[in-house]
């Protein structure tokens, strides 16, 4: 950036960092990152939302911190520094979850800790924060976290609705419809298995690609 004039905080370019990862540059369905946790935590909507927020916080602040440090860290040891920053943030998030939403934190089990190894976090720090100013980096991190969360929530929506008949813990499909109660309906048990999450992610990619022709591979 050669121009030294001050940019407005929410300029069009900065907003693009924030909203780009929602669709055209989505970390899960375009860059295919962070799939493993997307399969693991999406059985129900509530843990998925908590996970999405946690990852958003971690990506946002790790980008911010690394961008602030980017001129002081020798590039040979930058991975170590990144890991320390990310791990510290993840432990913070983990402690907060344990303190305020203990049951969800138990459901998420190791996957909160595994945010450290989530490829999206490291990927954004490496690819963006090390070469950009703090504010755009922060927006980019938040945007990627939310883009990841968006997919998580969509997958969890279908898995919880079709697999358990509930949404966010509230019953959507009436009990009286079930075969056990003399009805005709039965939950799709396959939705509770991780493979089905992969298939739903596949469907999202399918729909997304057919709407964005420029992403289609020849």
């Amino acid at each position: 950036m050669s121009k030294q004039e001050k940019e407005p905080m929410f300029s069009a370019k900065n907003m693009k960092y924030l909203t780009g990862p929602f669709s055209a540059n989505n970390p899960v369905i375009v860059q295919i990152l962070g799939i493993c946790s997307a399969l693991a935590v999406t059985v129900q909507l509530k843990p998925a939302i908590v996970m999405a927020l946690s990852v958003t916080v971690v990506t946002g602040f790790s980008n911010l911190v690394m961008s602030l440090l980017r001129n002081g860290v020798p590039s040979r040891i930058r991975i170590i520094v990144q890991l320390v920053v990310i791990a510290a943030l993840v432990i913070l998030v983990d402690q907060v979850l344990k303190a305020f939403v203990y049951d969800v934190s138990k459901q998420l089990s190791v996957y909160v800790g595994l945010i450290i190894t989530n490829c999206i976090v490291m990927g954004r720090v490496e690819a963006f924060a090390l070469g950009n100013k703090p504010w755009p980096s922060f927006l980019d991190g938040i945007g990627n976290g939310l883009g990841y969360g968006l997919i998580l929530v969509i997958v969890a929506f279908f898995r919880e609705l079709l697999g358990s008949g509930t949404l966010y813990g509230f019953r959507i499909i009436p009990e009286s419809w079930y075969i056990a109660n003399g009805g005709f309906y039965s939950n799709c048990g396959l939705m509770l298995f991780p493979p089905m999450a992969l298939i739903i992610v596949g469907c999202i990619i399918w729909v997304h690609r057919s709407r964005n022709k420029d992403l289609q591979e020849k």
Partner: protein
Amino acid sequence: MDKIKPAFSKGGKLGFLESTFDAFETFLFVPNTTTTRGAHIRDANDMKRTMIVVVVALLPALLFGFYNTGYQHFLSQGVPPEFWASLWFGFLKVLPIIVVSYAVGLGIEFAFAQMRGHEVNEGFLVSGLLIPMIMPVDIPLWMVALATAFAVVFGKEVFGGTGMNVFNPALVARAFAFFAYTPMMSGETVWIAGLTDGTGVVDGFSGATALEQLGTTGTMSYSALDAFLGFIPGSIGETSTLAILIGAAILLFTGVASWRTMVSVFAGGLAMGYLFEAIGLTTYPAWYHLIVGGFAFGAVFMATDPVTSAQTDKGKYIVGFLTGALAVLIRVVNPAYPEGMMLSILFMNALAPLVDYYVVEANISRRKKRVKLAK
């Protein structure tokens, strides 16, 4: 027919329905375009005739399935089963499942063909009949519809349609139904029509399949002859080994299915069965495995699927043998899955290309050595 054809060709006023029209035309008549060049064996057959042969081969098992559905139903009600009454009852029971399977599957198939501008492929003629035959009688129709839709879209169309699929679509449908709606696909009550309601059932009547009995107690309450002829509870088309063997004879006589696969599946199952008998894991004769459950049905109609099975002759022996062996292994060792045939065929579907690859590679290196020796 020829008169209305122009309306459906490109530019005609109904041009967008070209695929649909083409499907019906070639279904009813011999296609106008036949293979004239390339390394194809020229023959009066096209894929539609091949598929029809398979459908014909399925008929004995299907007819027996009708009869057995009624027979088991009347038996469970304590009414002496009469032949025609049983046949008619089973027909009324099974027909809706077949209609749903065909309507959903063909609907999706036609929609995809239209969207992509392909011809409609006729692979579903067989799959659409196979799906009802491997379902329990009492399954709700909407589950059949959902399983069929899943199988056609994710088992077939995402790979590029008929001929490109890695897995046998009918088995994908059954696997989907099995894992998604386990209570409706296993247990003691689903195999006989009317048993889930529990009304008017004779006291002490058990609907457990022969396989489930063998798995839990090591014996079955049916004679081996009954199991061979098919007078046992089970999925609609799988019970009668005799009817399946008639179908197998038709397939082999017309050369549609590979005898290599069939024979080696049976050999694999027997070998594994005898092994388990020898080490004392099972107490019943090993050949029971071949006549109960879906073993024979899978071996004859599923494992021989020309698309998903191995392509090389050696590969067919290997894949077939492993399919049979794996099926018995799952049956005996894993109590959660009394029927191992479905999983073992799907698993070997996934491995078949790998086996083919090594068979071809081995052949190449063998011939290279021969060239070196000659020099």
